[in-house]
């Protein structure tokens, strides 16, 4: 067998893994891989303007498509710039593979130019990572990296490849199947646990399904729907779970938690059985843990055993892939042989109660004839795009208003940094999603604060001719922090007011994109329509009510029933 250089092995591995697009930024320690990519010409490369953008774009690509996203960066600062993107993917269980160049092995540890121990730095925020010391190991490591990224609970995997390994030669044996004795994620749930869960369902009178990102990741949305329909149970979702169950379904209670709907939080608090599917009882969901769902038995399905029993005590833990587990659970529940009538009758008082909560405090906001309300923008955006858009968000108020007022009906239609809460995520993620789906409508909902954290990626989008739509809700504040200051710090707005924000319309034009602005409610619809219809990159800026808050809100450390309402 002819020998192959490490850099060619990388290209070959990418092709074998079916990688269509890479996001990256070159440099001295990765130049050889770039050269091999250029010579081969099969894999499309998107040149970003900052490596953080590359990691987020790979992440957005992965979230939208379900495939592994790949990004490329050089050693040292190139590698460290990806760290926020890696941590973002780690917290939300997104499969990405990050390839970094490294100084030659002989120089490692010498504080060489652009040397950093990126494997050490990313150890706690990757699912796994590798420093390749011998070119012979490279094909196996690359295959393992892709396998680890996508299997079990997905996550980011980093492979650090020194320059001499990129140029060293060895035979190329790419493993067809990966077997790792120390890594065997449980996919099939234990049938006894399914039966125990089914027993609890049989005895419940106030059940609620609490669905998280695991439903989206494992494509378990159909099974989830089947279970919810069979049982006639209400469903609430985490931020990551939005779209896993249709937001327009009559029994969808929308998002729960800190900025969740009143009825979702009340239903959780009063339920006697919580079916948690691919969710992890994060502090933003549970609020004060001692007061959380005190009357409920809990069934918890998750592929990662560490998620179970981490924050709350669980009555029936089910370790396994959500899709697999739900299929089995649906079967078991159907075997109970309860006719639809009986389910409905049984839960009628409960569903009535839930409806009553919903009508007592629906998701709402105070309308204003003169000032644009951000919620109104999101509502209009939803009316105009219903289900045919992929929405990415930044982090903060823009993200929460989107989660509340845009109804996500399909999985993978919301891309948002839930776990890490990374400002600057939305634009590069939208670029990644648009690369995966060139013909879909991709919209980034942003605030004037977070858009500026990765605004340089406008150039990337222009260069790739991506028709990404950017909605900026501009309140000239770091709005979410300002809201906390208003509520809990006696309105001392420390470092949250922007005295200078760029003219976003001109900024769009400076990049060769289109810029639109609305300053009055009457202009919102027109701007959105013009922006969405425009065939290229566009920024739509909305001058919104400056001190608008996100409500309901559960103050940090309070029980989820202690919501501040509109």
């Amino acid at each position: 067998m002819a020998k192959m250089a490490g850099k060619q092995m990388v290209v070959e591995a990418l092709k074998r893994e079916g990688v269509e697009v890479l996001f990256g930024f070159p440099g001295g320690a990765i130049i050889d891989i770039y050269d091999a990519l250029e010579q081969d010409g099969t894999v499309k490369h998107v040149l970003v303007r900052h490596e953080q953008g590359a990691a987020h774009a790979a992440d957005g690509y992965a979230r939208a498509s379900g495939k592994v996203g790949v990004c490329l960066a050089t050693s040292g600062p190139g590698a460290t710039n990806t760290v926020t993107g890696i941590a973002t993917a780690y917290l939300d269980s997104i499969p990405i593979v990050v390839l970094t160049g490294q100084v030659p092995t002989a120089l490692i540890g010498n504080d060489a130019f652009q040397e950093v121990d990126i494997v050490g730095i990313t150890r706690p925020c990757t699912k796994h990572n590798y420093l390749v010391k011998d070119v012979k190991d490279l094909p196996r490591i690359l295959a393992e990296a892709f396998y680890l990224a996508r299997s079990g609970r997905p996550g980011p995997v980093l492979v650090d490849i020194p320059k001499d390994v990129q140029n060293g030669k060895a035979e190329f044996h790419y493993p067809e199947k990966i077997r790792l004795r120390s890594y065997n994620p449980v996919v099939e749930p234990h049938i006894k646990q399914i039966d125990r869960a089914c027993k609890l369902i049989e005895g419940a009178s106030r059940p609620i399904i609490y669905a998280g990102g695991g439903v989206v990741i494992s494509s378990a949305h159909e099974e989830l729907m089947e279970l919810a329909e069979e049982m006639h149970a209400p469903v609430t979702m985490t931020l990551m779970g939005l779209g896993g169950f249709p937001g327009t379904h009559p029994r969808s209670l929308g998002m729960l938690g800190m900025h969740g709907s009143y009825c979702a939080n009340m239903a959780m608090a009063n339920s006697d059985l919580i079916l948690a599917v691919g969710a992890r009882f994060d502090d933003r969901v549970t609020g004060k843990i001692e007061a959380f769902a005190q009357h409920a038995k809990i069934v918890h399905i998750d592929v990662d055993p560490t998620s179970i029993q981490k924050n709350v005590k669980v009555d029936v833990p089910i370790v396994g892939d959500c899709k697999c587990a739900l299929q089995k659970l649906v079967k078991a529940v159907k075997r109970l042989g309860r006719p639809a009538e009986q389910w409905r009758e049984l839960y009628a008082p409960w569903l009535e109660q839930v409806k009553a909560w919903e009508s007592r405090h629906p998701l709402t906001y105070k309308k204003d004839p003169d000032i644009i309300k951000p919620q109104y923008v999101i509502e209009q955006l939803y009316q105009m795009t219903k289900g045919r858009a992929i929405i990415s968000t930044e982090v903060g108020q823009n993200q929460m208003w989107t989660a509340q007022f845009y109804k996500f009906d399909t999985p993978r239609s919301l891309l948002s940094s839930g776990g890490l809460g990374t400002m600057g995520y939305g634009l590069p993620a939208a670029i990644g999603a648009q690369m995966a789906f060139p013909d879909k409508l991709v919209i980034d909902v942003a605030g004037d604060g977070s858009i500026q954290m990765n605004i340089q990626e406008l150039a990337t989008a222009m260069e790739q001719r991506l028709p990404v739509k950017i909605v900026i809700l501009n309140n000239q504040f770091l709005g979410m922090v300002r809201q906390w200051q208003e509520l809990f710090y006696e309105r001392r707005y420390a470092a949250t007011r922007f005295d200078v924000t760029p003219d976003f319309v001109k900024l769009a034009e400076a990049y060769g994109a289109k810029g639109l602005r609305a300053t009055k409610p009457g202009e919102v619809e027109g701007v959105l329509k013009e922006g969405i219809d425009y065939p290229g990159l566009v920024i739509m800026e909305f001058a919104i009510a400056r001190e608008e808050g996100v409500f309901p809100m559960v103050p940090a450390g309070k029980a989820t029933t202690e919501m501040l309402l509109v």
Partner: protein
Amino acid sequence: MKHTLSVLVENNPGALSRIAGLFSGRGFNIESLCVATTLDPTLSHLTLVTSGAEFIIEQIIKQLNRLVDVYKVVDISEGEFVEREMALIKVRAEDETRAEVLRMCDIFRCKVVDVSSKTYTVEVTGPESKIKAVVELLRPLGIKEIAKTGTIAMAREKKTL
């Protein structure tokens, strides 16, 4: 409560750092840690003594298992097990105490592994409690230096990792 975990881990560079990082990053305790290769050179055996409430120990075991390099984790303190530590103690041994040190060594079945005109270096092996006892008894005689291993442990009888 104290728990002694036996962990088999791939003998990869960085594996120990992943485990140490897991404990520091998640705020778990490590009371002692001992690592060496096994008969299979691709695996290392790590004995880790930690403490915490039951649900913390459950998390520790799960989190360890989640590491890609970790092959197996057993809480051997759940059953019968033997544990040993070793200490080297350099103790002052001048005219009036030389015989006393040797008497102590004899009682505790310690070994003198190095001798100088003014010191004995004593090797003591046993469970943590025994090491403690020896240290306490030698302390009044003048301990100049002490080096201790962490605990290594093994389940009793037929059980193996």
